[in-house]
């Protein structure tokens, strides 16, 4: 699924293939004609059989290997160009069909779009030799073909081909060419399994399909190639909308009149894994098909988008995206509420310290610290959003909380929490007397407040607060500048309580005066930090299994030793003791860091061994299993979760695992599918995006007998779930 940018090797491959194809064929090759070659294209007539049998149809094909950058055309070439033509001369009594056309690609050129093929393609046709042939005869096929091959300029080419095929009692397949023919057959459109409705209103039109396997999780891109020239605007984007079991493609009309009878064409779907499949569609134009209710929108094939390598385009939220100001408002609210979410618990300690340190400080200092903290939060949100956008632009599947899908990150955060806890317990000191956290987060200065804000964001992200889900989903579909604005708003919301202190530093005077209570508070707050470290190690155990956990624990030991050694060094009188302590601490830290690369390599634990998947009554989620259950007409409850998602865990404890809910599942024959996104798989990411979410949790209730799923809120209660379940 991850699509790396093309490496030089990948770019060289088509060149190499073309050069190889241009070489003279070694020896006599009866089953692939002598090629017609130019510096642009190498064409041959190929047969799928080494020997034909009397009366038995077989496939013949015009095999094209094109130089990089050059293309040939589909039966409807789009805005310009013409398709290849072939004329066969066959022995008496034999017959042949025309070409069967593999699904084309959109080939943009300036404001125009052509339909055709790049790199290599084989256009197959069927030849039926006469039944009167006898074994030992030779069946000779002669062909005259012409084709137009274009890059920026177009060159007409032609060739004359001849194949002498031996006749035997039974057909004998050609192993060497079988792969080419298989690939060609696989790219041919198949009969469509869906109900199709098609209609136009003025210049706007749409094709709507209904039936199984059309789902936002399965379909990444869709495009309809009209068989008839000019009926549709070849270059216009076709906006795609998807819901469970339904697909609607906008079809802007072209200038040519609609032909009488059904409109034909080929629908090409690209699935979540990047595989293309093609279907023959024929539908008589009628009324404009209705828009899908509650559908996600795919990025339509806008001009040039394909060639930019934009990667998977996420499906949007319900209906149209909300305006920017509303997304920002929701994001700010979500950020504010993030302060109260259970997964922020680990950093409550840090927040408490951040406030406590302001006690008794001068107004200017209060303002400075509050501003630094706010800046830390906002900039961290922007950085996370930027990395996320960059990863997705690279074709990755990064969702919100993506950093938790990397085991090395989780281990590193666990150690950081341990170090912060040890610091709060007084094992070592950093900075002034009321030190907070470790590393730069512990500096007494503004840098410390800034780093505290950053740390808070890093740890809090897996907690998508209810208000943030829609906002983040919408934000990722907006232009980059708008996306960043929404994330900045979220950061401002989260930092709002502290920003308030900056605006009214007098509020800090209400805090108790500094004194011994601060030391006590600090020591007590060490324990939430240890708890956070434990939680992170538990998350890690889900990802990397016992070996990885052991490595992470060893790292924790090293961090503990480093903290102790540093503390010794700080108390040492002599320079030598100080040196020894610091040296020991540095070595121990290096040892811990050395454990990180192997952790990143550790294969993930299989889903079956995960605590998060092992919930009684739950089956692991897969698109296939979901489709199967829905085909049976059963209602389905889908729970998308991850080991690092505390909100998910809480929901499962208080709502999903309650006796009342379990009984309801059993009584009403509701299947319970649980998807584990702990290591961020693309299939689940696609489902999340299809419902306008960038992270877990996501709860879907599919009604019995088909139809759209209901999306439940991110905070569940038992009564809420019971009400949402379909009646038995």
């Amino acid at each position: 699924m991850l699509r790396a940018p093309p490496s030089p090797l990948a770019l060289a491959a088509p060149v190499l293939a073309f050069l190889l194809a241009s070489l003279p064929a070694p020896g006599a090759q009866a089953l692939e004609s002598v090629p017609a070659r130019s510096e642009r294209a190498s064409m041959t007539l190929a047969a799928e059989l080494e020997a034909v049998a009397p009366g038995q149809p077989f496939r013949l094909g015009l095999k094209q290997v094109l130089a990089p950058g050059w293309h040939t055309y589909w039966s409807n070439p789009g805005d310009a160009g013409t398709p290849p033509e072939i004329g066969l001369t066959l022995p008496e009594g034999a017959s042949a069909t025309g070409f069967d056309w593999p699904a084309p690609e959109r080939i943009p050129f300036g404001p125009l779009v052509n339909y055709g093929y790049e790199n290599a393609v084989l256009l197959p046709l069927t030849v039926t030799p006469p039944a009167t042939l006898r074994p030992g005869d030779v069946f000779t096929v002669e062909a005259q073909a012409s084709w137009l091959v274009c890059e920026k300029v177009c060159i007409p080419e032609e060739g004359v081909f001849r194949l002498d095929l031996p006749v035997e009692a039974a057909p004998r397949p050609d192993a060497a060419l079988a792969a080419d023919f298989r690939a060609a057959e696989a790219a041919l459109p198949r009969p469509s399994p869906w109900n199709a409705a098609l209609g136009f209103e003025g210049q706007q039109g749409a094709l709507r399909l209904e039936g199984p396997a059309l789902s936002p999780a399965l379909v990444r891109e869709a495009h309809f190639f009209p068989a008839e020239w000019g009926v549709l605007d070849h270059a216009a984007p076709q906006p795609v909308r998807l819901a469970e079991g339904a697909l609607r493609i906008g079809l802007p009309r072209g200038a040519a009149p609609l032909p009488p009878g059904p409109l034909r064409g080929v629908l090409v779907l690209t699935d979540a894994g990047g595989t293309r499949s093609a279907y023959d569609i024929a539908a008589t134009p009628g009324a404009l098909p209705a828009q899908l209710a509650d559908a996600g929108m795919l990025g339509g094939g806008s001009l040039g988008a394909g060639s930019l390598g934009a990667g998977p385009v996420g499906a949007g939220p319900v209906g149209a995206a909300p305006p920017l100001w509303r997304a920002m408002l929701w994001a700010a609210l979500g950020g504010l509420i993030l302060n109260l979410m259970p997964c922020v618990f680990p950093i409550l300690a840090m927040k408490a310290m951040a406030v406590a340190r302001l006690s008794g400080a001068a107004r200017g200092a209060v303002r400075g610290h509050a501003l630094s903290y706010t800046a830390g939060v906002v900039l961290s949100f922007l950085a996370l959003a930027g990395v996320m956008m960059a990863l997705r632009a690279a074709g990755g599947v990064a969702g919100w909380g993506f950093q938790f899908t990397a085991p090395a990150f989780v281990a590193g955060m666990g150690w950081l929490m341990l170090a912060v806890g040890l610091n709060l317990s007084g094992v070592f000191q950093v900075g002034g007397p009321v030190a907070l956290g470790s590393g730069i987060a512990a500096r007494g200065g503004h840098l410390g407040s800034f780093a505290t804000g950053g740390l808070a964001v890093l740890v809090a992200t897996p907690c998508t607060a209810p208000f943030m889900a829609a906002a983040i989903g919408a934000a990722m579909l907006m232009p980059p500048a708008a996306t960043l604005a929404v994330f900045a708003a979220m950061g401002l919301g989260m930092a709002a309580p502290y920003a308030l202190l900056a605006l009214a530093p007098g509020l800090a005077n209400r805090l108790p005066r500094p004194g011994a209570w601060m030391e006590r508070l600090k020591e007590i707050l060490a324990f939430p930090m240890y708890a956070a470290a434990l939680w992170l190690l538990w998350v890690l155990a889900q990802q990397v299994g016992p070996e990885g956990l052991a490595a992470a624990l060893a790292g924790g030991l090293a961090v503990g030793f480093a903290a102790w050694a540093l503390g010794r060094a700080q108390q040492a009188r002599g320079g030598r003791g100080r040196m020894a302590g610091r040296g020991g601490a540095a070595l121990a830290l290096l040892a811990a860091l050395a454990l990180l690369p192997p952790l990143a390599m550790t294969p993930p634990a299989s889903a079956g061994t995960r605590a998060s998947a092992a919930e009684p009554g739950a089956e692991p989620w897969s698109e296939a299993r979901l489709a199967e259950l829905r085909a049976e007409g059963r209602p389905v409850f889908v729970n998308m979760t991850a080991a690092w998602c505390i909100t998910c865990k809480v929901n499962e404890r208080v709502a999903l695992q309650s006796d009342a809910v379990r009984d309801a599942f059993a009584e009403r024959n509701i299947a319970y599918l649980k998807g584990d996104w702990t290591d961020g798989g693309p299939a689940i990411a696609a489902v999340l995006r299809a419902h306008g979410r960038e992270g877990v949790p996501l709860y879907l209730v599919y009604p019995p007998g088909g139809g759209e799923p209901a999306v439940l809120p991110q905070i569940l209660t038992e009564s809420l779930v019971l009400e949402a379940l379909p009646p038995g």
Partner: protein
Amino acid sequence: MAKLLSRRATLAIPLGAVLMPALPRLAWATPVIGAPAPDFAAPDQDGTTRRLADYRGKVVMLEWTNHDCPFVRKHYNSSNMQTLQKQAAERGIVWLSVISSPPGEQGHVDGARARGLTAERGAAPAAVLLDPESRMARAYGATTTPHMYVIDQAGVLRYMGGIDSIASNKVEDVAKAEPLARNAMLAVADGRPVERAVTRNYGCAIKYAPGA
């Protein structure tokens, strides 16, 4: 983290793609039959600016062309295009050949070369319009060379589409094809309705100037 770090090197490239806005179809229009044809102002082979409004009262034929395109060559090598141009001149129809290729692309010419081509080929257009920024092509939604448009005496678009009915680059097909553009041109000159007002234009893609 290492998983993320290892991708850092790849981040620089796609960031450019993220920041690149979606390419809009700049000023692209598909003109409508029966509606006023888009106005234009373009220099001809001698540098004189020609406007559609200059030809009010006359039928105008627009021919998009690129002398190196195989489809254009089919119609000039067979003398089909020159014959049509002469017929147009006899009937008082203004034939304008339009060249929309930008500098450096196939088909681009300056005024002198345009005059030379007309002389070499025995062509007889009323003028050759030079549109190196592809503005006129965008206004008319022209896609191929050749691409033909007929505009009536009142400036209303009456025909757009192919020069004839057989989409090939073979000279021998000219005689077999239905001369769609010719039929449309003569119908408009005679005041008859055009039987097929939009037909399939075929040929080489017009080499558009980048977003003017």
